[in-house]
């Protein structure tokens, strides 16, 4: 892919020299491999988009590039020379600057004062600085009053100040982390115009996004990250529209040794009829025993709220009967929620929510199974230890015994432990949220197999932003976009399954030809 891209770039006669070259960058956090062998070139005059799911490694890569964290191995080359950044200051000195999602400005100071912060020289010349700010702002079409207080500025204006800060320091490479998330549509247009202008001036722009339309609007090159690796890299010109980009994002189906075959369906376990909470609006679907219902969509489209409603963390707004679980309405179920043969929740955040990383595996096993091992308020540690050891054996959890801390386990082993722990209570309804995020292939297959096997006695609500996972496991798909189900359809509907990528971009089935009339999140 790399060679093909280079070839095409030369053919177009605009192979600019790489300002930055990343060579086999690897970075792990504990046992999680956030970046593996990432090689990438960033060229002057180009706008590179990094596309990927949450946790694909985009932010890690950018924090290495901006000097905030350090790679485990691999090299960053600036102008062809290796540049070991030890701090954001080093990266800034090399001309690489980053605009974070959360701005780093002092609210009680003016625009000019904020620009003065962190200057290397001891002597400042505020009036010259102010003039330079005005000049830069005018050049890129930023309307900004250099004497305004940051606290009085809108989010869009604050972002401009952040960008001006980098321009003022002559950054040649600007990295923007989801820059449009806080902007209004006209502000987005202004930002894009300014970024194009900067690229035309010979700067390089890198931006992180998961909105396909924006990527197509702005980028000249696109890289797709998945599970810490760059899985695809191509020119904007190679993808005519969202359909093609969606296909590229989804990628080729991975060859996995897990295949799902339908099992007999039983009674209805979960029924949503017009359920709403926060961003999730009027969701309707039902889930039976023996079924995996995969809710797919780009992260942040209401999946979180759906999970919160079903697991009882949030109260549905649409009346008590809008969510029915195991034959009871939401209130009745949550009030008398039994321990066994009930609902379990496998959260995405294994170390933050599902476990106490500093406690050992036995304590983590007891965390949700404690009610089954108590006599008159005392915990039966002997029996629970035996049960926990059985679970570890059955789920092939590789750990330094029962007294290893949960935090010392690799992501895959910890997830297997969490699955074993939750399945220990013979659940009827399983809510699993990105259950294989950050896992290696073998652990992922193991988790998938377990989920498919669980269909014998349970129904699974699988909320995932990994389309491969949904394709592997789902009996039924529900595609979520901006808080609503765009469509709910069975696996057998091949035509719809084929256009899930488009639906994730908000385009209902059969309407891709009329795409121009669609209004997206601008």
């Amino acid at each position: 892919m790399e060679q093909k891209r280079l070839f095409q770039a030369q053919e177009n006669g605009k192979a600019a020299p790489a300002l930055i070259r990343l060579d086999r960058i690897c970075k792990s956090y504990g046992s999680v491999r956030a970046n593996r062998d990432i090689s990438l070139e960033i060229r002057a005059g180009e706008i590179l988009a990094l596309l990927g799911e949450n946790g694909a490694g985009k932010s890690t890569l950018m924090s290495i590039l901006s000097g905030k964290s350090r790679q485990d191995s691999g090299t960053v080359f600036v102008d062809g020379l290796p540049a070991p950044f030890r701090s954001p200051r080093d990266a800034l000195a090399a001309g690489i600057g980053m605009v974070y999602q959360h701005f780093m400005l002092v609210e009680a100071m003016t625009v000019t004062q904020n620009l003065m912060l962190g200057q290397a020289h001891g002597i400042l010349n505020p009036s010259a600085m102010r003039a330079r700010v005005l000049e830069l702002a005018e050049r890129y079409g930023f309307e900004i009053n250099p004497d305004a207080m940051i606290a009085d500025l809108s989010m869009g204006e604050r972002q401009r100040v952040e960008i001006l800060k980098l321009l003022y320091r002559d950054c040649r490479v600007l990295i923007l982390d989801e820059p449009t998330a806080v902007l209004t549509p006209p502000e987005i247009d202004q930002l894009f115009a300014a970024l194009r202008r900067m690229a035309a001036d010979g700067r390089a722009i890198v931006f992180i996004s998961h909105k396909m339309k924006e990527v197509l609007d702005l980028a000249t090159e696109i890289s797709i990250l998945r599970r810490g690796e760059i899985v695809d890299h191509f020119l904007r010109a190679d993808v005519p529209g969202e359909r093609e980009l969606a296909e590229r994002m989804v990628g080729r189906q991975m060859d996995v040794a897990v295949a799902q075959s339908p099992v007999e369906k039983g009674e209805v376990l979960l029924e949503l009829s017009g359920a709403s909470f926060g961003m999730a609006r009027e969701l309707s679907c039902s889930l039976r025993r023996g079924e995996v219902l995969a809710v797919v969509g780009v992260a942040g489209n209401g999946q979180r709220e759906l999970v919160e409603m079903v697991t009882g963390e949030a109260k549905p707004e649409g009346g008590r009967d809008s969510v029915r679980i195991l034959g009871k309405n939401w209130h009745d179920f949550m009030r008398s929620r039994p321990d066994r043969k009930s609902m379990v929740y496998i959260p995405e955040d294994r170390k933050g929510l599902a476990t106490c990383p500093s406690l050992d595996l036995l304590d983590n096993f007891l965390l949700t199974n404690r009610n089954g091992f108590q006599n008159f308020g005392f915990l039966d540690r002997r029996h629970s230890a035996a049960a926990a050891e059985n679970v570890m054996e059955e789920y092939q959890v590789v750990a330094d015994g029962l007294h290893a801390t949960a935090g010392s386990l690799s992501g895959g082993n910890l997830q297997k432990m969490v699955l074993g722990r939750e399945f220990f209570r013979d659940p009827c309804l399983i809510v699993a949220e990105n259950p294989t995020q950050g896992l290696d292939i073998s652990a992922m297959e193991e988790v998938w197999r377990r989920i498919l096997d669980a269909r014998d006695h349970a129904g699974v609500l699988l909320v995932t932003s990994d389309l491969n996972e949904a394709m592997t496991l789902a009996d039924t798909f529900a595609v979520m976009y901006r808080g609503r189900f765009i469509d709910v359809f069975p696996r057998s509907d091949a035509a719809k399954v084929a256009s899930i990528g488009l639906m994730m971009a908000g385009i209902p089935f059969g309407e891709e030809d009329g795409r121009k009339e669609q209004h997206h999140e601008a």
Partner: protein
Amino acid sequence: MDGFRVVRRQTPHRWIGLVVLPVALFVALAFCSLLLMIQDKSPVQAAVVLFQGGFGSLYALQDTMLKAIPIFLCSLGVSVAFRMKVWNIGAEGQFALGGVGATWAVLAFPGLPMPLMLALMLLCAAVAGGLWGMIPGLLRLKFGLNEIISTLMLNYIGIEFMRYLVYGPWKDPGSMGFPMTAMFPDEAIFPEVLGYVHAGLLVCVVAAVIVAMFLQRTRLGFELCAAGENPRAARYARIPYGFLLVFVLTVSGALAGMAGCVEVSATFNRLQPSLCTGYGYTAIVVAWLSRLRIPSIALFSVFVAGLLVGTDNLQVDMQVPAAFGGIVEGFILLCVLAGQFFHTYTIVRLGREQGGAA
């Protein structure tokens, strides 16, 4: 090219704890020696006086134990709350209220036989201290009021309440105007069990065993520890966080209250304002030093109590200012706490971490 970087340890180091403590003590004493040298006093002699005063003789050890008892009980109490990451810094006030509760029992039921009397005093002290601890718990649960502020503020109220009683309604008419209650009858005074160390020691042992059993063996104790480790996971596992919040503050207050009872009964034999000398605050430090482990709390209680006794000696023998004792204590705590940084973090050289790639 070279540089250093602080990195979080993946697993706790096995033997670093054994090294950190002596090194930290040494550094602290070195600092204190410097201060003494400025005053033209011999640091070696000072160290000898300090440690002999605290630990050097049977009398010294018994004095130390007497101070260690209330510190231990208060520290055990705050450690229960700290385990859940609830910051009870109100042990001092709960301690005062415990003294009040015990005194009330003596004043209301004179004439009871000793075992009954002592048990009733402990119970009343625990209830009074517990209620005083429960207030910030309820305030946080109902109104989201930060318990650090409310427990601290309630210290002042609690101590002033105690002072009000001994200056007013409970003042002994025969005390010639001194603010104090009448001397307790013999039945209300903890007997001596070990040399002149009183039966408060037994209260400590029993309380320690019960708290340890509670934390390790019961479901509630387990829930409490889990909630402290990760409140989000506690919520996920449907642990009753709000109930536990009030519960730990109540238990914490009850233990500090029992310390107050032991102190009025055995040390003062009456309620008087000098009851509150900061044990409740020392207890917080002890809990931190011992990293909330009960055997360590016992050891550090004795150690810190020894320092208190030793620095008293220092004042008398070497004419150093009274504040010096506090300075020694402060240096030691600072160094030990700073040293505990190495339990969770380690420092690596950057050049090596890179694997030669740069």
